[in-house]
C-alpha cells in the first residue's frame, strides 16, 4: 500500500495523480486501468480541493494499492460529510455544468464505497481491469443476437466493468436512464417500488441485458435493480449503446423482439393477476389456477414467482387482520355488558357501552361492587391505537379490578394503580381515567380524575353540572397522587361518564360534535333510564357523524338513581 498526503491545492492534486500513475505503471497495470484511475483521482481530489469545506485542515490522504491488475484507492479527509457514492446527480443541461464529474467517478470506479469514520470521509474505490469477454456469450442475449462482432466488441470496449455486492443497487426507479447494464455473472431482482413497499417483478440471471429500453429511448427507470448475488457487469452509456445500434441497425430487431415478448408476458400476467385476485377475494385458490400457475412456461416464471409472493403477502395481511379482530373481541369481552348484580336491584340503574373505532381501540369502562353498598364506576381512554394500546387497556382494567378490591382509600388506590402501570409501560403509553365510587345508601360520590374529560351530573330539571377535572393522566409520572373529590347525587339524578370519542366525533365536513350538542341531548332526554340515556347520545352522535369514518372509540357510562 502506497500512501501520500494531498495538499489543499490543485497543483498538488496534479502531482498526486502523477505519483499514482507512476506506481500504477510500475505495478504493470494496463493502459486502460491507468487511464480510468486518473479520471477517478482527478474528480475525487479536485472536488475536495474546490468544493469541500472543513473547519480546520482538510487533511487529505491518498492510498493506492495495485492488486491483480486492479487499482484499489482510498481517499480520506477531514471535510464536512459528503457521500459521493450516493449523492443525487443533477441532469446536465444548459443551466449547469455540475454532475459530470460525479458521473465519471461512479462509472469509471468499478466499485465505490463511502463511509464516515470518526471525523473523516473515507472513500474506497476500485478500478477494475476490463473483464475479458467472449462475444459469443452475448449472442444468447436477444438484443445482441444479430449484432455483428465488430459492433459488439466496440460496445464492450466502450463499457466500464462493475462489481456489485449482494443487495447493492444497480439501478434506481425514477432516475434518468443514462446507461444500460449487461450482466456477466450473478443474478439481480427487478423491483417495482410502490408506496406500500418494494414489489419484486422479476429475477434476471446473467448473461442478460437490463435497462436498455430506458437508455435507448431516454425514459426514466420504471423499476430498480438489486443484486441477489455478487454481480459482475459492464455498464454501457446510452451514447455508446445508441452508437452500437446506429452502426448495426438490423440488431434492433432483436430488441424489438424482446420487447414484444415482454409485452406478451405482461398481458398474460395481467390476466393471471385478474384471475388470481378474484380467487383471493373469494378466499380460494382453486385447482385450475394452481395448475395454471405451475404450468406457465419459462417466460412467465418471473410473474408466477411474483404472484406467489403477492399471494403470501395478502394472506399474511388477512391473518393479521383476523388477529386484530380477535383482539377487538377479547377487548370487548373485558368490558361488562349487563350489570346483573342483585345488590343493585331497585337501588340504581347503570349501563355502559363502547363503540370501537375501525381497529382495536383503547377506551375502557368498568362497573363493579366494592362491597354491599358501594358501586365503583370508571371510564378511561388509553392514548394510541392498535394492539399496543389495546394491550395496555387490558392491563389497566385488570390492575384496577385487582387493586380496587384491596379496600384502600381512593387516593392510595389510584397511586398504587399508577405505580403499577408506570412500571409495566415500556412504550410510554398513558391513559386518562375517571374513577368514582357511589355509596348507594346516600348517593355520596367520591372520585379521582386522572386527566379524563369531566363527567356530567344530570339534575332532575334537565340542567347538567360537570365534575371538575384534576391531575395528569395515569402512567406518565411515578409516585403521583391525585386528590379525592366529592359530590352528592340526589334521588332521580344521573351521572354520565364518557370518553372524548363522543365530543370529538367529526362529521363529514370535519366539524366536531362538541360538548354543546351532548348537553342538549342529555338535558332533552326523558330521563330516567341508563340504557336510554346512552342510546340517545349514541344515536345522536351516529346521526351527526354519518358518512364520516369513526376516528376514535366512543364510550358512554350512565348511572341513574331512582326517585325515592
Amino acid at each position, binding site marked *: 500500500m502506497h500512501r501520500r498526503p494531498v495538499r489543499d491545492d*490543485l497543483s498538488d492534486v*496534479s502531482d498526486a495523480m502523477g505519483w499514482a500513475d507512476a506506481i500504477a505503471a510500475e505495478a504493470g497495470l494496463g493502459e486502460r486501468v491507468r487511464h480510468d484511475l486518473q479520471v477517478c483521482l482527478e474528480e475525487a481530489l479536485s472536488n475536495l480541493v474546490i468544493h469541500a469545506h472543513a473547519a480546520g485542515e482538510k487533511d487529505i490522504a491518498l492510498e493506492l494499492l495495485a492488486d491483480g491488475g486492479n487499482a484499489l484507492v482510498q481517499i480520506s479527509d477531514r471535510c464536512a460529510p459528503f457521500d459521493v457514492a450516493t449523492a443525487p446527480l443533477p441532469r*446536465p443541461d*444548459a443551466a449547469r455544468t455540475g454532475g459530470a464529474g460525479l458521473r465519471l467517478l461512479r462509472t469509471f470506479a468499478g466499485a465505490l464505497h463511502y463511509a464516515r469514520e470518526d471525523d473523516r470521509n473515507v472513500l474506497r474505490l476500485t478500478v477494475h481491469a476490463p473483464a475479458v469477454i467472449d462475444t459469443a456469450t452475448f449472442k444468447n442475449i436477444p438484443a445482441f443476437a444479430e449484432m455483428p462482432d465488430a459492433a459488439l466488441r466496440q460496445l464492450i470496449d466502450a463499457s*466500464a466493468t462493475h462489481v456489485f455486492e449482494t443487495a447493492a443497487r444497480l439501478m434506481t426507479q425514477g432516475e434518468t436512464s443514462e446507461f444500460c447494464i449487461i450482466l456477466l455473472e450473478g443474478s439481480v431482482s427487478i423491483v417495482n417500488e410502490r408506496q406500500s413497499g418494494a414489489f419484486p417483478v422479476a429475477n434476471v440471471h446473467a448473461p442478460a441485458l437490463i435497462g436498455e429500453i430506458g437508455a435507448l429511448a431516454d425514459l426514466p427507470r420504471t423499476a430498480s435493480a438489486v443484486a441477489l448475488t455478487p454481480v459482475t457487469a459492464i455498464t454501457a452509456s446510452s451514447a455508446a449503446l445508441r452508437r452500437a445500434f446506429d452502426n448495426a441497425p438490423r440488431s434492433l430487431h432483436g430488441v424489438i423482439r424482446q420487447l414484444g415478448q415482454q409485452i406478451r408476458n405482461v398481458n398474460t400476467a395481467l390476466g393471471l393477476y385478474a384471475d388470481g385476485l378474484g380467487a383471493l377475494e373469494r378466499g380460494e385458490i382453486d385447482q385450475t389456477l394452481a395448475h395454471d400457475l405451475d404450468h406457465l412456461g419459462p417466460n412467465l416464471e418471473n410473474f408466477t414467482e411474483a404472484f406467489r409472493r403477492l399471494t403470501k403477502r395478502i394472506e399474511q395481511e388477512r391473518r393479521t387482520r383476523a388477529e386484530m379482530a380477535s383482539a377487538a373481541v377479547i377487548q370487548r369481552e373485558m368490558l361488562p355488558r349487563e350489570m346483573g348484580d342483585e345488590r343493585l336491584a331497585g337501588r340504581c340503574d347503570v349501563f355502559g357501552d363502547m363503540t370501537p373505532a375501525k381497529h382495536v381501540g383503547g377506551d375502557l369502562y368498568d362497573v363493579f361492587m366494592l362491597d354491599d353498598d358501594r358501586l365503583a364506576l370508571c371510564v378511561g381512554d388509553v392514548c394510541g391505537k392498535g394492539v399496543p394500546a389495546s394491550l395496555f387497556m387490558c392491563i389497566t382494567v385488570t390492575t384496577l379490578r385487582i387493586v380496587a378490591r384491596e379496600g384502600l382509600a381512593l387516593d392510595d388506590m389510584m397511586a398504587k394503580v399508577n405505580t403499577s402501570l408506570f412500571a409495566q409501560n415500556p412504550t410510554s403509553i398513558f391513559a386518562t381515567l375517571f374513577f368514582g365510587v357511589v355509596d348507594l345508601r346516600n348517593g355520596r360520590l367520591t372520585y379521582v380524575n386522572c386527566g379524563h374529560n369531566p363527567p356530567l351530573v344530570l339534575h332532575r330539571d334537565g340542567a347538567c353540572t360537570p365534575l371538575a377535572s384534576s391531575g395528569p393522566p395515569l402512567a406518565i409520572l411515578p409516585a403521583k397522587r391525585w386528590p379525592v373529590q366529592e359530590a352528592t347525587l340526589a334521588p332521580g339524578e344521573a351521572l354520565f361518564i364518557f370518553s372524548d370519542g363522543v365530543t370529538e366525533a367529526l362529521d363529514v365536513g370535519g366539524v366536531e360534535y362538541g360538548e354543546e350538542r351532548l348537553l342538549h341531548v342529555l338535558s332533552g332526554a326523558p330521563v330516567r333510564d341508563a340504557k336510554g340515556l346512552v342510546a340517545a347520545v349514541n344515536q345522536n352522535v351516529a346521526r351527526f357523524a354519518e358518512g364520516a369514518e369513526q376516528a376514535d372509540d366512543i364510550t358512554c357510562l350512565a348511572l341513574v338513581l331512582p326517585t325515592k
Partner: protein
Amino acid sequence: MQLNIEDLPDGVTKAILAGRMDIDGASAVDMQFNVLAGNKRALVVDLSQVSFIASMGLRTLMTCARAISSKGGRMALASPQDNVRRVLDTSGVEDLMGVLPSVESAVSFVRTT
C-alpha cells in the same frame, strides 16, 4: 497542452487541442476558451490529439458550450480517441454540444445554425 485556432469558411472556427486536458492542461487553455466563448458562434473542437480528459477539462469545454449556445450558436467536439470518448459518453456533455466522429461531420453540425 496546445490550442491552435483556425478560421474555416461560413464563420466556423476550428480549435485544435493537443496533449493531456488534465488539471494543468485545462488551466493552460481555460482563458483561450473564454475568449472563444465570447467571440464565436460556430465552434468545432478537434480532439483527435487529446489523450486524456476528465472533470476539469470537461468543465472548460462545458462552460464554453453553454456560453455559445446561450447566444444561439453551436459547438461540437470532433474525433475523440477511445478513452476520451468513453469519458464524453459518461459525462452527459451531449446534452450541451455535439460529439461527432470527424471534423467534417462536426463542421456541418455547427454550420446548421
